[in-house]
């Protein structure tokens, strides 16, 4: 799914457009607020990160830095949250697009799930 279409589904506002669009579009969602959880999920998944987007309530710069580490190129902040200027500045330097949606985590996941986007491979605590 293209970024513009995602934005429309989530009634999202684009705060920073890196111009990046993954080949084949976005097809996978990582929804979390804990950055170590994000790292664990992305370590478990065998897939390339290019089609993964992040839904999160956290707006500090570490969200962007963590996304950079695992090659997530689209971060969508929830509940209409807007990040601080330093978060946007870091995203710009990392080539990461930023959007904000008025929807909650639950609603956003529901909307994207209904459109057949998949969950990033669930972190397996037994591994």
């Amino acid at each position, binding site marked *: 799914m293209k970024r513009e279409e995602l934005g429309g589904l989530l009634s999202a506002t684009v705060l920073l457009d890196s111009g990046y669009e993954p080949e084949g579009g976005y097809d996978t969602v990582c929804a979390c607020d804990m*950055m170590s959880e994000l*790292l664990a999920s*992305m370590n478990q998944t065998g897939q390339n990160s290019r089609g993964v987007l992040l839904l999160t309530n956290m707006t500090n710069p570490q969200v962007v830095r963590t996304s950079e580490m695992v090659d997530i190129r689209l971060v969508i902040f929830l509940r209409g949250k807007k990040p601080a200027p330093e978060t946007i500045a870091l995203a710009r330097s990392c080539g990461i697009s930023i959007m904000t949606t008025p929807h909650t985590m639950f609603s956003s996941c529901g909307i994207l799930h209904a459109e057949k986007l998949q969950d990033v491979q669930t972190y397996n605590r037994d591994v």
Partner: protein
Amino acid sequence: MHWEFSVTGGNFSGAGEAASKIKNILKKLGIAYEVIRRVSIASYEAEMNITAYADEGKLLVDIDPLEINITASDRGPGIPDIDKAMQEGFSTATPAIREMGFGAGMGLPNIQRATDWMVINSTVGKGTEIKFKIYLKT
């Protein structure tokens, strides 16, 4: 090839810069995507640990044709019980660390999971050294 990066304890605004530089070096060297991701996750978690808990530290990176070796060493409080620290969910994180989205007690297990080999040496009141290795062959 050898690189060294300094990390300042408590400098949350700069946290992750060393791991980002390491990642860019690996990309320029043409290292495989999967290896870069594993190194990035492990070195970033190690850097966050120094930032969150230590006074100062450094990441030493050595790359040879077979493997990538990283040592994260710090001057800080040390880890009283390493076995406990390796248990997922155990954390001594402060509220400031949790506000950054860390402190879930997954840092050290994440490093272990992302790497092929890892060892921790720590002396309470002096500091901690975490060494890990990732093979370049798949």
